[in-house]
C-alpha cells in the first residue's frame, strides 16, 4: 500500500509511539502462540469434547479469530486472481462470471461435509485438515461477493484512467498497483467488511460438525457454544454469546473502522467531502511516528517491487488483431470448455445413477417448496415489521446514529448462537418446529432488511421531505409517493441478501438440538443436514444442487426484476 504520511509536524518520540510498538509486538506474539495450536498432531475424529471452562474462552476466541483472518486473506487473494482473469480475458470472462453467479447461490453449509472429508484426507493425523475445512467454509461465504465487487470495479474503470495508463506507457504492474487496486479499494474494503460479518455464522457452523456419524470439533468459540448447548448449560452459552459480542465489536473497532477511514483517500471525488469516515484507532496510529518511519523504510522495498513488476510487461494492446486467428482461438477455447463441462456433468449423473438413480432429485424438489414457503413468509413478515421501523430510524438522524452500529453488530452476530434460547422457548410453549424454524432463520436474515432500509431512508433528500410537508402529503399517500419509492432500491438489496441468508440458515435451523432433544422440521434444509450427518453423498449432492436451483430461480425470477425496476424507476 502507499504509505500513510503523517501530516503532523516532527516531534520527539512520544508515548503514542511506544504504545503502538508494544501493541504490534504483543499481536505478533499472540498470533504465534495461537497459531501453534493448529498444527498439533491428533486425530481430529478423536477430539470428542471441548473444555467448557469459561477461562478457556479467550484462547478459543483467538483461535476463531485467526481462522476468520486467514479466510479473509485467502478471499482477498482469490478475488485478485479470479476478478483479474475475468476482467482481462474475454474468453475466461464468459465462463468465470456465470460460474461465480452460481457459486454465490450454492448453500455453503451443504458443502461442508464434502470439503471436511476432503481436507481431513489431505492431512491425516493432524488438526490442519480440519482447520482448513473450517477456513474454507468461511472463505466460501466471503469470496464470491468480494470477487464480484472487484470485477465490477475493474470493468468500470473510467476510460481516461485506462488511457492514462496506456498513453504514459505504464507497466501492467503499475496499472494494477497505481490505478486498478486503488480505484477498487473502497468497494473491496466495504465488501470485505460485509462478507466478514457474514462469515461469523459459518465459523460457528464449521467449528463443530458431524459428518458420516463422526463428530469433528475444533477449539473455538463456536465449538465451545456447541458443547455448552449439548450440555444444556445456558450460563455457559451466555459466556459464549458475550465473547462473540466482544469479538464482533472489537474487530469492528480495531480493524474495519480504521481500514474504512484510511480508505477515504481512495475516493475518486473532485472536492473534499464534508462527511468522512473517522476512526479513533487510525487517528491514534497517525499521531505516532511509525507510519512515516515505516514509509521511509519501505520506500526501497516498494521500488524493488515495482522493478520486479516490470516482468509482467507493458500495459499495451496491439492495435490490430487478426480476426481469423481470434475466431480460431475462440472456437478452440469454446470446444475445450464445453467438453470439460459435458464430461463433468456426465460423470456426475453417472455417479448419481449408479448409486441411487436420478429419482434422487424428486424428494429435495418437493421439500424445497416447503422451505421456499418459509423463505417467502420470512421475507414478507420481516418486510412488514422492519421497513416501518427502518424508515422511522432513518428519518431521525439522532436515532440513526445510535441504531446503525447496533444493527450492524446484530447482523454480523451469528444467529446460530441464539438457537438454544429459541429452542428452550419452543419446548416451553410447544410451538411446532415447522413454524418455529422460520423464526430461527429470521434471527440472522432479517437484519439485512432493517439495515438497508435505514440506509435508504437516510438517503432520501430532506428537501423532498420538506416538499411533502409543504404540500400536506401525509399518511398512506406519503408512503406511496415518497417513502416506498425512496427506500425501494436499498430495500431490494437487503431483500436479496436476506433471502439468500435464509436459505443458507435453513440447513442449520430446520434441525435443532438442545440438551439431548432434537427437533426436526420438514424441509430441504433438514434433508441436507441429514444427508451430511449420514455421509450420504448422492443425497447431499442432489440436495445442494436443488437448493442452488431454488436460490438462482428466486433471484432471477423475482429479485432481479425488482432490482431492474429499482434501477430504472426509483434511483434518486
Amino acid at each position, binding site marked *: 500500500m*502507499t504509505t500513510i504520511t503523517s501530516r503532523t509536524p516532527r516531534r520527539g518520540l512520544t508515548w503514542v509511539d511506544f504504545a503502538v510498538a508494544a501493541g504490534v509486538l504483543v499481536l505478533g506474539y499472540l498470533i504465534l502462540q495461537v497459531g501453534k495450536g493448529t498444527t498439533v498432531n491428533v486425530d481430529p475424529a478423536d477430539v470428542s469434547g471441548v473444555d467448557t471452562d469459561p477461562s478457556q474462552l479467550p484462547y478459543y476466541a483467538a483461535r476463531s479469530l485467526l481462522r476468520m483472518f486467514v479466510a479473509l486473506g485467502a478471499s482477498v487473494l482469490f478475488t485478485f486472481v479470479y476478478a483479474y482473469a475475468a476482467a482481462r480475458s474475454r474468453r475466461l470472462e464468459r465462463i468465470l462470471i456465470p460460474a461465480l453467479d452460481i457459486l454465490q447461490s450454492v448453500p455453503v453449509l451443504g458443502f461442508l461435509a464434502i470439503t471436511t472429508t476432503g481436507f481431513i484426507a489431505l492431512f491425516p493425523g493432524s488438526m490442519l485438515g480440519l482447520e482448513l475445512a473450517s477456513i474454507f467454509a468461511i472463505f466460501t461465504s466471503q469470496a464470491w461477493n468480494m470477487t464480484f465487487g472487484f470485477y465490477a470495479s475493474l470493468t468500470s474503470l*473510467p476510460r*481516461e*484512467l485506462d*488511457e*492514462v495508463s*496506456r*498513453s*504514459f*506507457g*505504464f*507497466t501492467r504492474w*503499475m496499472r494494477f498497483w*497505481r*490505478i486498478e487496486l*486503488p480505484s477498487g479499494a473502497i468497494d473491496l474494503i466495504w465488501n470485505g467488511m460485509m462478507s466478514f460479518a457474514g462469515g461469523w455464522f459459518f465459523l460457528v457452523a464449521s467449528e463443530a460438525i458431524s459428518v458420516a456419524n463422526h463428530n469433528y470439533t475444533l477449539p473455538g468459540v463456536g465449538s465451545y457454544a456447541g458443547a455448552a448447548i449439548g450440555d444444556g448449560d445456558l450460563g455457559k452459552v451466555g459466556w459464549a454469546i458475550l465473547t462473540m459480542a466482544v469479538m464482533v465489536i472489537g474487530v469492528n473497532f480495531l480493524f474495519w473502522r480504521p481500514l474504512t477511514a484510511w480508505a477515504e*483517500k*481512495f*475516493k*475518486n*471525488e*473532485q*472536492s*473534499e467531502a464534508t462527511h468522512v469516515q473517522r476512526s479513533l484507532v487510525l487517528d491514534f496510529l497517525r499521531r505516532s511516528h511509525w507510519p512515516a518511519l515505516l514509509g521511509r523504510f519501505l*520506500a526501497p522495498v516498494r*521500488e524493488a517491487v*515495482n*522493478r520486479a513488476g*516490470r516482468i509482467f510487461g507493458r500495459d*499495451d*494492446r*496491439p*492495435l*490490430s488483431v487478426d480476426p481469423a486467428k481470434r475466431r480460431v482461438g475462440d472456437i478452440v477455447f469454446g470446444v475445450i470448455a464445453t467438453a470439460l463441462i459435458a464430461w463433468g456433468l456426465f460423470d456426475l449423473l453417472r455417479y448419481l445413477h449408479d448409486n441411487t438413480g436420478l429419482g434422487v432429485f424428486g424428494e429435495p424438489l418437493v421439500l424445497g417448496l416447503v422451505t421456499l414457503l418459509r423463505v417467502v413468509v420470512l421475507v414478507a413478515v420481516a418486510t412488514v415489521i422492519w421497513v416501518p421501523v427502518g424508515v422511522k430510524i432513518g428519518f431521525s438522524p439522532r436515532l440513526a446514529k445510535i441504531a446503525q452500529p447496533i444493527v450492524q453488530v446484530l447482523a454480523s452476530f451469528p444467529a446460530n448462537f441464539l438457537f438454544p434460547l429459541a429452542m428452550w422457548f419452543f419446548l416451553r410453549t410447544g410451538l411446532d418446529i415447522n413454524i418455529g424454524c422460520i423464526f430461527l432463520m429470521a434471527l440472522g436474515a432479517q437484519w439485512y432488511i432493517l439495515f438497508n432500509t435505514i440506509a435508504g431512508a437516510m438517503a432520501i433528500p430532506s428537501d423532498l421531505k420538506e416538499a411533502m410537508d409543504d404540500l400536506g402529503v401525509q399518511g398512506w399517500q406519503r408512503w406511496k409517493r415518497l417513502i416506498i419509492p425512496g427506500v425501494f432500491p436499498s430495500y431490494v438489496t437487503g431483500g436479496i441478501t436476506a433471502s439468500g441468508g435464509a436459505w443458507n440458515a435453513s440447513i442449520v435451523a430446520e434441525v435443532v438440538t438442545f440438551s439431548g432433544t432434537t427437533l426436526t422440521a420438514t424441509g430441504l434444509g433438514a434433508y441436507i443436514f441429514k444427508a451430511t450427518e449420514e455421509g450420504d453423498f448422492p443425497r447431499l449432492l442432489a440436495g445442494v444442487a436443488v437448493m442452488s436451483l431454488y436460490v438462482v430461480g428466486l433471484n432471477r425470477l423475482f429479485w432481479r426484476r425488482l432490482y431492474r425496476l429499482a434501477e*430504472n*424507476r426509483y434511483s434518486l
Partner: protein
Amino acid sequence: MTTATPTRRTGEVLLAANNVTKSYAGADGELPVLGGIDLEIHEGEIVALLGKSGSGKSTLLRCLAGLIPASSGSVTYRGEELHGANPGTAMVFQTFALLPWLTVQQNVELGLEAKGVGPKERAEAAVQAIDLIGLDGFESAYPKELSGGMRQRVGFARALVVEPDVLMMDEPFSALDVLTAENLRGELMELWESGQFPTKAVVLVTHNIEEAVLMADRVVVLGSRPYGTIRETFDVSLVRPRDRQSAEFEQIVDAVYQVMTGRTKDGPKLTEPAPARRTPASTPLPAASVDGLSGLAEIVAQYEGGASELADLADDLGLEVDDMLPQVDALELLGLAEVEGGELRLTGTGAAFARADVQASKKLFAEAALEAAPLVHLITSTLLRSAEGVQRAGFFRDLLAHHYTSEQIDRQLETATDWGRYAELYAYNADSEEYRLDEDAQLRVEPGVE
C-alpha cells in the same frame, strides 16, 4: 485570405495519418466516424483539430496517440507505423484524469516511473516540470485540494515531464471557467514562444473556435456529415500573443465559423449533400431541447428586426458561439430562423413562434416539426397508421439502426421525444418504452401527414 500564408510547416514530419478511417460497431453493422483523413504534424507547429461534437476529432486524436486502432489506413510516428500506444506522445485530458490517491509530485512522476527512471532522477525531473508549469509549493497536495486550473496544470506537468515529441491535448480547457482557461492558455503560449516547452509539436482538440485561432498555427476543421472528414484547413500566421480584438483575428474566426456551419471559406453555402428528400437518416435532429431553442428564438426576437450577429448574441449571453450551435441548427432545420453570413434572423414563422402564447406556439411548433423534422414525422405517421396508436420504441430503433450508433439513436429519439411531447403529437412511456399518439394529434396533423 490575407492573413493566411503557409509558413512554419517546414519541420520534420513527426506524426502522419494516411487515409485513416474509423468506424464503430453500430446497432446494425459498422458506422463510419472518420472517413479518409490525411494529416501531417510537423516539428514546431501547433495544430488544432476543430469540429462540432460528433465530428470525430477526439477519435482522430486517439488514433494518432495509438490508443484506438484505425479501421483502415495507417498512423505513423517518425515514419514507423504504430502497432500500440504511440511512444512519442503524451496526453492531457479534458477531465484531468489525475489519480486522486497520489500527491501532485507522485502524479507528475508517474510517466517517468513507467519508463523505469530511478527515484532520485524522477523526483528532480518532476520538481523541474512542476516549477515550469507554475505549481511550486503544491508538490505534496492531493488533487482534490486543488482548484480546476491547478489540477489541469498537474495534467500538463505530468505530460511535459516525459518530454514527448508531440503533446496531445483533448479539450484541455473546456472543464475550466472562462478566466482560468484564458490565464492558463496565455501561460502555455508564453512557454511555447519562449522555447522552454519540452515538446516539439502540439495537437489540440477543441470545439472552441477562438481558442483554436488563438493558439494554433494550423486549424483543421472537421465536418461530421456524413462522417468525419477534413472540411478545410486554415493557416494562422498571426504573431503571438494574439489579440482577440484585432481585425485580422476576427476575420479568421468569422471564416472558420462559416465553414463550421456548413459554408465554404468564401461565400455561398456549401453544397451540403442536400438530400432530395429529408429522411431521419439524412437529417439527424440537433441535440436541442424545445426549451433551449424557443429560449433562443425569444431572445433573438427582442433584437432589432428579429436578427442578430451570432457573435454578439453569444457575447450578450456570455456564451461561446459554439455552445449555441445545436439550438441554431434546430431553429434553422425547423425553418424558424435562417443563418446568413454569421447573422441569425428569425423567419416569419419564427417570429410568430417567439411571440405566441403557449398553446399557439405549440401549434406552430407541431407544424414546423412535422414538416421539417423527419424523425418526428416518421413517429407521428407510424402511430397514425397503427390501429391502437401505439408503437414500441424498439421499432424506431431498428429503423435507425442502419445509420446511427446506439448512442446516437438514443440521442435522436430523446430529441424526437422532447419535440413530439411539446408539440402534443405523441407521448412516450419510459416504463413500457412505447410511443402513444396524442389525442389531439389528429387535429394538428391534418394536411401534413397522409
